């Protein structure tokens, strides 16, 4: 047993063990070069509504994406709760209409529907007006939260006008339609 070894031998044992594990990881990567490539963002970007489905609205700049701890660089301190609950990746985009109005769309893919339920509770709580989007949705003064499957989605505008809220709901519905829930997910 390791615990029976003298101190210097115990240290040596640990070093050798670390080297062996590193070699194992390195050899696995070598036979599976795809493991070093980041997973494609395409499926997540496909959740963004098409401009053709949004009359008068278009994407304002390139959507931004993040995976794992990269979320901290994307949304700073806002990332803590997502990471704590089990975050996989995110895409963040802004839409703009001909009048210069903007709507922000954040889509967070969590590790599981349980993670999503948990983060949704933190973001939306019991507040807001319940609306029929995804599995659960709440509309607040100028923003909308909903969840579906492993996705937590937040949309926000810059005013409380009825028209803005209508667009939050419309874009939200389009995102929800584009999210497919794997069969058998509770």
């Amino acid at each position, binding site marked *: 047993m390791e615990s029976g070894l003298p101190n210097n031998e115990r240290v040596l044992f640990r070093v050798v063990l670390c080297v062996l594990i590193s070699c194992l990881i390195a050899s696995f990567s070598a036979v599976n070069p795809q493991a070093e490539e980041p997973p494609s963002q395409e499926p997540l970007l496909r959740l963004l509504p098409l401009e053709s489905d949004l009359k008068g609205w278009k994407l304002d700049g390139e959507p931004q994406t993040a995976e794992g701890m990269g979320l901290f660089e994307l949304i700073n301190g806002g990332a803590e709760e997502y990471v704590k609950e089990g975050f996989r990746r995110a895409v963040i985009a802004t839409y*703009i209409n001909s009048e210069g109005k903007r709507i922000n769309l954040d889509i967070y893919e969590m590790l599981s529907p349980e993670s999503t339920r948990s983060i949704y509770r933190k973001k939306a709580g019991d507040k807001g007006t319940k609306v029929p989007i995804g599995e659960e949705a709440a509309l607040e003064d100028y*923003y909308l939260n909903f969840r579906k499957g492993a996705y937590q989605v*937040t949309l926000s505008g810059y005013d409380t006008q009825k028209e803005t809220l209508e667009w939050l709901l419309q874009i939200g519905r389009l995102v929800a339609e584009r999210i497919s829930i794997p069969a058998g997910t509770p």
Partner: protein
Amino acid sequence: MDSITRRSFLKKAACMTGGALLSPGPLSAMAQPNPQGTPAPEMKPDLVAAKGEDAYLCTLKAIQELGGIETFVRRGDRVGVLVNSPFKSMGASVNPDVVLAVIEACLQGGVKEIRYLKNPYRGYWERSARSGDLENAIKSLKYESGDHVKVEIPGGVALKEAKVTKDLLECNVFINVSIAKHHQGVHYSGALKNMMGLCPFSTNSFFHWGTLRLGWYGDLDHLNQCIADLNLVKKPELCISDATTFITENGPYGPGKLGSAESVVASTNPVSLDAFCCRFLGLKPEDVLMIPKASRHGLGNMNLSRLRIKSLSV
């Protein structure tokens, strides 16, 4: 009878003169200003809180009451403005009208260049109705170079060195423009916290994970101490806090429920400013750990009862 020497005469004369000036007798009254004459100039306030619907005008008024922009900038200066404006949600970034007022005042003051030390989110300026009229002022801004340099912090308790944007060190005047808002980790984000905007992710990560405790906010004492220490890197000449509209939950990123105090507050130090503005989030200065820690560094007075505070409506 004692003979009077030159030395004893000078001693007695000095004692009599000093006594006369210090005693409350009729001679001491001669040292006081004539109550019938011109009044002594009013002391400048330590902090000005301007309340009104127009954030631009409130900002200009607050700067004016603090001594005017000429108190802080000179012709030919290179000014660095650090604005909390990377967050897209309402009430998570400084109202652009506040920033435009600061920029316009600096340009009126004849500054050579204004460096915008942390880039705003896309479409930020369009949030202001004044962005069209002040288009040239916005265009004149020089944005982040992206270069960071390592600086020593000799007085730092938890943070002995940090990487900060090189642009800051190339400026001779520093203006900190923050928003008073909720922060889920440190409860309050204001002027002191805004300094983290100068640092790259690697430095800010140390603030959060430096003691290897689990979680982004695993060691709040360390995080707050690092923020206080970082403020030793460069003391701002002027600090402005936007308390017009701000998130009261889900900070710093938002979106969340909004609060509004319709106020812009200005001070010459971030400690007094944060000590005053945390009330908008229902907090006391001692509730926000970084405030007493920064105060202990001598960065400002958090004891509001000892400050000259001027509140006014615009």
